[in-house]
């Protein structure tokens, strides 16, 4: 754990106090802010690095958002505009084009922008909602030349659907996660040729609906158990080499093929963005690289809460909104001295077939929603937590399971330091 103690010439900083500072004005940050306001907190500030509020949603121009939260089928911009509009209606203060440089364990938030320069907020509570970032070429270790035309899927999406550029005309996509699938469709709709999606696992990692509506609809080949090994081209990508991989995900020699293309899109994983969290001394879950949180979304530092993709990567923005509301509500209660203090902690341990769970512990017996990600697809699954039994006809790694934990569970587990969360194949009914 790295502790950063930056020296920005603290004495010269413009300092002010605030009840709650929210870092990040995307889906999580906005819903957290609105909930805190609803709870009676007036003194709020949202700090957003982009030139507009909304986070990633304004560039997600496809539908499928809000099916659960609003019971409507909305585009990304439509979904988030409801929250942005409400923040503006309520005249909640926010700063755009503002970069938060550090958050201290004492909840001192240092940020910078052009009009104000460098400044500091001393907050009673902080809500971290910085979201996540994409894996880059460097992290994937793709060999070969360094031409133009190698982009992450989110970058291609921003270029296409905010800035109005067509990033390429002959495209190969590495990774079958949802962002890659969505961009495959976007490229095809704009007249580009998507030659293949290359996926290292034996099954695609995105939602079934996206496999059908992004690949099958456009006859885009999905190559399973393949990876991109080399890029070719000097100024611009001219081709990529792909190779088959075994169950161990290692390249099988002799299976190499070359695909000519001018663009390689990388959609190979998202990582919660937690430099600020580390600087605050917050403990991170080493498995998922986000803050360890309890059932009220508080981190290991008292008064610092976290929500949305900075905690773990969610599949639905509806779930992100719910975690934001949970964090906002409890940060408000904390400021109002209405949040019960932590009692004995019960750690929720990922058991059989479970990759991870969030929150990772229960400290107060407060109602919460548990998110579970399984390790593999399981038919007729049974989720077991203490005496709780929940059945699902199908669970998959590509879709987290959200379970509301009932009050009765907390009575039951009082005194237990550890609780295993298990998902097993149940019997066919």
């Amino acid at each position, binding site marked *: 754990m790295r502790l950063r103690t930056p020296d920005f010439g603290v004495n010269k900083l413009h300092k002010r106090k605030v009840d709650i500072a929210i870092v990040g004005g995307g889906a999580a940050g906005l819903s957290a802010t609105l909930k805190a306001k609803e709870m009676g907190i007036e003194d709020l500030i949202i700090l957003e690095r982009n030139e507009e509020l909304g986070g990633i949603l304004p560039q997600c121009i496809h539908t499928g958002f809000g099916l659960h939260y609003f019971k409507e089928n909305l585009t990304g911009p439509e979904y988030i505009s409801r929250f942005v509009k409400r923040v503006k209606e309520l005249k909640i203060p926010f700063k755009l084009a503002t970069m938060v440089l550090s958050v201290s364990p004492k909840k001192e938030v240092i940020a910078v922008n052009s009009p104000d320069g460098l400044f500091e907020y001393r907050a009673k509570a902080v809500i971290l909602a910085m979201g996540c970032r994409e894996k880059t070429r460097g992290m994937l270790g793709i060999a070969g030349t360094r031409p133009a035309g190698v982009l992450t899927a989110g970058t291609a999406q921003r270029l296409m659907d905010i800035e109005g550029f067509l990033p390429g005309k002959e495209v190969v996509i590495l990774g079958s996660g949802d962002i890659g699938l969505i961009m495959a469709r976007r490229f095809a*709709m704009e007249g580009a040729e998507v030659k293949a999606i290359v996926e290292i696992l034996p099954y695609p990692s995105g939602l079934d609906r996206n496999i059908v509506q992004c690949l099958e609809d456009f006859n885009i080949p999905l190559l399973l158990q393949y990876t991109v090994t080399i890029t070719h081209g000097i100024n611009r990508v001219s081709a990529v080499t792909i190779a088959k991989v075994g169950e161990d995900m290692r390249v099988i020699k002799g299976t190499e093929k070359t695909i000519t293309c001018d663009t390689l899109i990388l959609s190979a994983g998202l990582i919660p963005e937690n430099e600020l969290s580390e600087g605050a001394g917050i403990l991170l879950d080493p498995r998922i690289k986000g803050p360890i949180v309890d059932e009220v979304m508080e981190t290991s530092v008292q008064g610092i809460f976290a929500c949305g993709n900075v905690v773990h990567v969610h599949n639905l923005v509806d779930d992100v909104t719910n975690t934001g509301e949970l964090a906002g509500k409890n940060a408000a209660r904390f400021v109002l001295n209405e949040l019960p203090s932590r009692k004995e902690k019960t750690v929720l341990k990922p058991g059989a077939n479970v990759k991870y769970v969030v929150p990772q512990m229960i400290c107060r017996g407060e109602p919460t929603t548990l998110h579970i990600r399984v390790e593999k697809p399981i038919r007729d699954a049974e989720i077991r937590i203490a005496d709780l039994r929940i059945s699902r006809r*199908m669970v998959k790694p590509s879709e987290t399971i959200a379970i509301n934990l009932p009050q009765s569970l907390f009575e039951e587990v009082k005194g237990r330091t550890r609780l295993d969360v298990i998902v097993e194949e149940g019997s066919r009914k």
Partner: protein
Amino acid sequence: MKKREERLVTCIVCPVACKAKVTVKNGKISKIDDVECARGEKYVTDELQKPMRDFFTVIKMKGAMVAVLPVRSTQPIPREKLLDCSQELIDVVVEAPVEMGQIIMENILGLDVDIISSREVRSKQQN
């Protein structure tokens, strides 16, 4: 001799994602196998006979901080018309300001569906 064909359709109604085996005789569905529920059967039938999709794209903008405007169809359109609709909007340029839900093109390609703005955009002066 009757023409018989077998088609595979992935149902997307629930996470089970049944891979339906549909037997088509003389252009009519005669049998659906490997589907576990009635909702799935209906989806597979509709999907095979008349697949519909939400349509969305971006179109060129003038006088705003963003270069393009995201738009969507008010209702799903036939799948085979997706690229045609994209083509139809190529030369459309919209001037800011634009309201959320503003109609950009009425009854596109005679499909009885409008193309509307997916966001509000203020003009450069307003910002």
